[in-house]
């Protein structure tokens, strides 16, 4: 494989999946890596995450630390959850349904955890 699309469809922090997916994306940087936020995964795009008091890793820090990873958020999922006009992590690119699906189809593999 030369390219991987990691699809995150569950909310961050409530489960280990977002953390696990970002870690897998980080070690995959030798390939072209896209992280696609879809369904409840788009909550990861919210700005201002501060997880110190909860005692868990800050997931937005991981996104900032690895600019090699392209992070896309599925716009219809954001809109449905009332996030479209919220402050979001700048580094995350909002893409419409068509482009989001296109990016999946043009990656060589898709991984959901």
């Amino acid at each position, binding site marked *: 494989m030369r390219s991987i699309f990691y699809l995150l469809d569950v*909310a*961050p*922090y*409530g489960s280990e999946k977002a953390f696990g997916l970002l870690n897998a994306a980080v070690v995959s940087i030798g390939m072209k890596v896209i992280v696609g936020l879809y*369904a*409840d995964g788009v*909550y990861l795009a*919210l*700005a*201002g*995450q*501060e*997880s*110190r*008091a*909860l005692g*868990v890793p*800050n997931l*937005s820090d991981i996104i900032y630390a690895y600019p090699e990873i392209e992070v896309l958020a599925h716009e219809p999922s954001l809109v*449905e*959850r*009332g*996030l479209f006009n*919220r402050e979001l992590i700048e580094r995350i690119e909002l893409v419409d349904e068509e482009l989001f699906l296109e990016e999946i189809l043009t990656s060589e593999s898709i991984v959901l955890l």
Partner: protein
Amino acid sequence: MNGGELLDDSENTTRDVFLLTKPPKSDRAKICLRLAALSKNAILYLAGDGVYNLLGDAIEALPSARIFACKEDLEARGVQPGRIAETHCDFYDILVEEMMLDGNRIYTF
């Protein structure tokens, strides 16, 4: 506000305590909020991914319900609570105090 003050405005009625830990699009959040809307005296406690219900309009339909949210969970997720929720550091102490009170009930989703 602590658990004791919480009781002062309870008018001696029993309460249905709803603990919601799921985001708004989940089937569990939906049935939880429908039950809370049916209850005559619901209080909603949001923890974990349940705090995402403060974004969007899922809980706006909840009439006169009092809503509490766990501060650490809000902060971690970058959720601004808005005007309807009261956030607490001692969220679990208040939740447990309230759910264990005589006559009260707890529904967990």
